[in-house]
Every structure is written in structure tokens, then in C-alpha cells.
């Protein structure tokens, strides 16, 4: 079956996950790893860059669920919070090592996602969105109300920075490198998940669940796996966040945070490799520099989501990829030459009406 799926999806996957040319990639990596050196003297930029790296991990996870497998999750902040709180409680309050508590957080988030996901992925997808909102709210209230474990709304402070091979990463620039390594690994991992056996199944159940199921894809299992993968990414990001800010409180893990993650996916372009990075960079910069406009920021934010959903359904990166595919790379393939590129929007789905 994997053979059939791979043949069916090869052409589509090439559109979604193009190979970046090697010299460009190497230059990009060198640039990204030089960036902390350039900004090292400015603690604020270092912090913003670390936040961008952390969000790239979390948003990459959400993109596996939405962009790859087509399910809507508005509770991503719950997994982010589980990762953050396991580091805060285990390493901050009980003196565990960061890596052990990270592992506990990841395993807890994955188990939680499977427990929540297994029964609820069989719902029509907008009802899954509802369950995830409910789960997110319950998790936030749990952080808030179980005062003897999580210290309630006062939050947990003085979370230590991790050390690796005896090198302490308490220096912000060193920590930024750790975050960037994690982010780079997460992007590569996400790309490879997209082209893997599981990734093809995700693509299949997104474009046409009925057809995928009749080809032998286990719908519920595949959806649950996508959900659990996203939870793992979210938990890793949350753990890194707790250690970066060295303080967690329930206010961070709200529905608004989940919406922020989702907007990042949408703006960058769901289901693309670069999309989650571009979306994160755009929205983080807007959020950081928009703070001086306070309330007007929200108006801009709402308008932007509407405009992107209505006019740029594939996001910034997705639209650029379409442009590149249609007009630069393969101009002969447009119209009437026997090969037409099938776009996502034109594929019939069982979704509406």
C-alpha cells in the first residue's frame, strides 16, 4: 500500500516539499548560526531570537496536524504548557536535570494527546476543534487551580537553565544556540515526516479521507499519530520556553496563545516547510514591535487573519511556491500540455455541502 500511496503522491509532495539547493542551504545555516554572534550584545534581540526558535518548533508541530493531516487543533497551548510545567515542576521545584524533565514532559504530552485524540479524531473536524478548545481550557484551569503542585496563578519562578556535557547554558547566547539547534532539527524532522510513509498517509487523509480509507489507511490511527506528533513538538517547545524565561504561569497557556500558533501556521502557509518559519518570524516581529500600539495591535491582528484566510489561503510561502511552480520552473506545464498541476482547492473533498 505504501507503494501505491507513494506513486500517487510523489508529484504532489514535490510541490509541497521542494528540495532546497545545497549551497543556498549551507549559506542559510551559516547565516542562522552567525546571527546570535551579531546580536550577542543586545540581550533583547537574543531573547526575541530565542522566542522565534521556540515558536518554530511549536508551530512546526501544529503544522503536522493541520497542514499535513488536515485536522484543526485550537488546543496547542495545552501541550506547550504541559512541556513547560513539567520542566518547571521537576527541574525548578524538585531539582531534576533539565533533560530528564524534558523527557517526562514529552512522554506526558504524547500520552495525553493519544488519550484525548483517539476517541475524538473520529469526529467531523470542526468538532475536533471544539474538543481541543475545551481541552486547552481544562489544562489551563488545572495549572491555575491545583495550587499545591503548580503554585496557581503566582506561577513557578527560578527555573534553572540546562547544562550539556558539563557546559552550563545559562548564558543567553549559549542558550540561543541550543534553541536554534532544536529548531533546525525540528524543521528537518518535520520535512522528513512529510515525505515519510506516515507523511504520505497524512496527505492522503487530508485530501480525501474516504479514498484514503478505502486504500487501507487506518484513519483513526493515522490521525491520532499526527496529533501525538504535534503534542511532542509542542512539549519540547514548552520545555525550552520555561527554561528560557525561567518563569511559567497559567496566563501564558491560554486560548489566545493557541490562536497565535494557528495564525502563524496560516500566515506562513500550511503544509510547507518554510511556512512555519516565515509565519513565526512575521508574527513575532509584529507582536514585539506592535506592543507600543497596544489595543490597535489586536485590530490589525484580526484583520490580518481574515485577509489571509480569504485571499491567501496557502499563506505567504505557499503562494510563493505556487508562483514559482506555475510561472518560473515549469511554464510549459501550464494548461493544454497534458499535465496540469492539481491545486489543493480544486481537489474535491468530502468536507462541505
Amino acid at each position, binding site marked *: 500500500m505504501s507503494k501505491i500511496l507513494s506513486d500517487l503522491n510523489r508529484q504532489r509532495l514535490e510541490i509541497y516539499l521542494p528540495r532546497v539547493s545545497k549551497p543556498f542551504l549551507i549559506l542559510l545555516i551559516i547565516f542562522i548560526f552567525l546571527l546570535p554572534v551579531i546580536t550577542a550584545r543586545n540581550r533583547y534581540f537574543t531573547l526575541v531570537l530565542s522566542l522565534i526558535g521556540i515558536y518554530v518548533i511549536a508551530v512546526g508541530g501544529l503544522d503536522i496536524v493541520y497542514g499535513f493531516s488536515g485536522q484543526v487543533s485550537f488546543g496547542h497551548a495545552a501541550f506547550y504548557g504541559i512541556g513547560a510545567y513539567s520542566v518547571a515542576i521537576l527541574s525548578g521545584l524538585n531539582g531534576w536535570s533539565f533533560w530528564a524533565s524534558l523527557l517526562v514532559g514529552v512522554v506526558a504530552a504524547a500520552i495525553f494527546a493519544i488519550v484525548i485524540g483517539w476517541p475524538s479524531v473520529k469526529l467531523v473536524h470542526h468538532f475536533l476543534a471544539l474538543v481541543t478548545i475545551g481541552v486547552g481550557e481544562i489544562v489551563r484551569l488545572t495549572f491555575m487551580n491545583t495550587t499545591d503542585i503548580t503554585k496557581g496563578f503566582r506561577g513557578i519562578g527560578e527555573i534553572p537553565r540546562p547544562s550539556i556535557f558539563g557546559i552550563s547554558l545559562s548564558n543567553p547566547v549559549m542558550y540561543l544556540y541550543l534553541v536554534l539547534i532544536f529548531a533546525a532539527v525540528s524543521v528537518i524532522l518535520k520535512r522528513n515526516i512529510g515525505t515519510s510513509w506516515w507523511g504520505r498517509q497524512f496527505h492522503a487523509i487530508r485530501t480525501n479521507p474516504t479514498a484514503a480509507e478505502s486504500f487501507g489507511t487506518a484513519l483513526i490511527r493515522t490521525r491520532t499519530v499526527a496529533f501525538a506528533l504535534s503534542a511532542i513538538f509542542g512539549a519540547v517547545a514548552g520545555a525550552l520556553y520555561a527554561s528560557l524565561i525561567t518563569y511559567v504561569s497559567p496566563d501564558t497557556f491560554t486560548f489566545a496563545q493557541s490562536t497565535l500558533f494557528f495564525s502563524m501556521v496560516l500566515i506562513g502557509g500550511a503544509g510547507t516547510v518554510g511556512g512555519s518559519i516565515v509565519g513565526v518570524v512575521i508574527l513575532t516581529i509584529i507582536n514585539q514591535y506592535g506592543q507600543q500600539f497596544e489595543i490597535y495591535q*489586536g485590530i490589525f491582528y484580526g484583520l490580518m487573519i481574515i485577509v489571509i484566510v480569504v485571499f491567501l489561503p496557502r499563506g505567504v510561502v505557499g503562494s510563493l511556491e505556487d508562483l514559482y511552480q506555475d510561472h518560473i520552473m515549469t511554464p510549459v506545464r501550464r494548461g493544454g500540455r497534458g499535465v496540469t498541476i492539481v491545486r489543493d482547492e480544486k481537489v474535491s473533498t468530502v468536507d462541505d455541502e
Partner: protein
Amino acid sequence: MNINVALKLLASGLVIGSVYALIGLSYSFLYRGTGRINWAQGDFFTLGAYMSWTIIVLFDMPYFITPFCVAAILALLGLIVYSTIVNWISKRGGKLVDVILATIGLAILIENLIMVIWGTEVLSVPNPLPGILKIGPVLIPKQSMVVLGICIFTVVAFYFFLQRTSFGTAMRATADNRYAASVIGINIKLVDAVTWALSASIAGGAGVALVPLFGAHFYMGVITGLKGFAAAVVGGYGNPWGALVGGLLLGVIETFGVFVISSLWRDALTMAVLIGFLLFRTHGIFRTEAYDE
């Protein structure tokens, strides 16, 4: 818990529940008529509350004309949303999830506009019906009875509108099969537009009913809207009676839950009920066939 306390809790639960029921009705009605979900319904509710504050306190008008003004303004807003966002999305062949996402953007936009226009503090409206009604041992503010009355009246009115008028029949036909309805000459676009307008004005009406009791706050629509949705799902999505029963049930469960457990877990309790229903009885109390896909 003695019987007096239980009756008091039941009464206040029914009042909160009737607001959930009204918002649930607006969700249900929209879904029944057009198959769309408008996530900004809770913020239409907030807008209703703020507009009635503006009409009553700023313009110094009597309370009884506010429902009509607010319903008219919100119907217009619903029409605008339908003819811009929803229309553009359907034109490019967007899916239901695109409408949900766009209306989430709309919800954020409305919340922040309210913050800019009316500020962030709670605005209160003088109670149009002061005084307390005594039913046996239970004391109920008269305004609460008005809220409950408005809710039941609206649900019954909508039931008869859908079942007995020709336009209601056209709506039900469109909901069942859009293509077949268009073949026999029903103007689907008109039906859609009217459904959007009416559903927005129901949500606004809930705001008008509630504002004398709790005042208006820019964030009140977010969680109340979600609970209204939960009410619609619990009752049976797409069924007006389902919204009523689900809303009242949710309100009562919430009030008793707050009394028995703690007010800290109020929202978590509603979400748990919602998740329980979604997982174990997806079609709600009234088994609706509205979303068999």
C-alpha cells in the same frame, strides 16, 4: 443541600442557561440553514450588550425599544459578514474550516474594536424591571424571569417560523438539499442572507436580555459564546429545541457544579460536559441528523 438552596440554584441556573440557549440557538439556526459556523457569534452577543448600553445610557431611550434597534443593527452586521467574508470564501471554493478561521479573525477584530470604542471596564445598565418575585420559598429578580421568558419565546417563535411559514419551509428545504432546493426555485442566496441576519440578531438579543443583570464587558462573549456552542452541541446541533434544552441543562449543571465543587472549575466543568457529549453522544440529546457527513 436543603430543598430551598436547590430551588434557588435551579432558578439562577435556568437564567444563565437561557442565555446559553439563545446563543446556542443562533449557532444551531445558522448551521441548520446554511451549513456554516460563525465563531464570532459570542462577540455579536457582546456587541448586543454594548449597543443596549449605548442606547439606554447614552441616548437615554427606554429599555423596551432596545431589542428592536439592536436586532436591526446586528442583522445588518450579519448581512455584511455574509456578503463579504463568507461570500468571498465560497467564491474561491473554500471549505467550512476557512469560514471558521475567518470568523475567529472577525471575533478578535470585534473584541479589540469594542475595547477601543467602549473601553475595558464593566458598563452597567439600570435595571428596567426592579423588584423581586416570590415563588414559594424562592426569591427571583423580575428581570431574570424576563430573560427566561425572552428565551423560551424566541425558541418557540423560531420553531413556528421554521415549521409554519413558507419562508421557513424554504429554509428547511435548503438545509436538507441545497441543489434540489435551487432546482425547485428557492432563492438559496436570499435564504442564506436571511439566515445570517437572523442568527446574528438572536445572538445580539441575548446580549440585550442579559445586560441589565451582569453589565457589559468586552471579554464576556468569548467564554459565553463557547458555552452557547456547547449548549447547541449538547442539545443536538441544528435543532432549536435542542439548543433550549441543552442551554438550560448546561446552566443548571454549571450552577450546581459551582455550589458543590468550586467556582474555580466553572468553565472546566462546562468543557468536560461538552467533551463527554461529543465523545459518547455526538448527536446530542435530540438525535439530530444535521451533520451526518
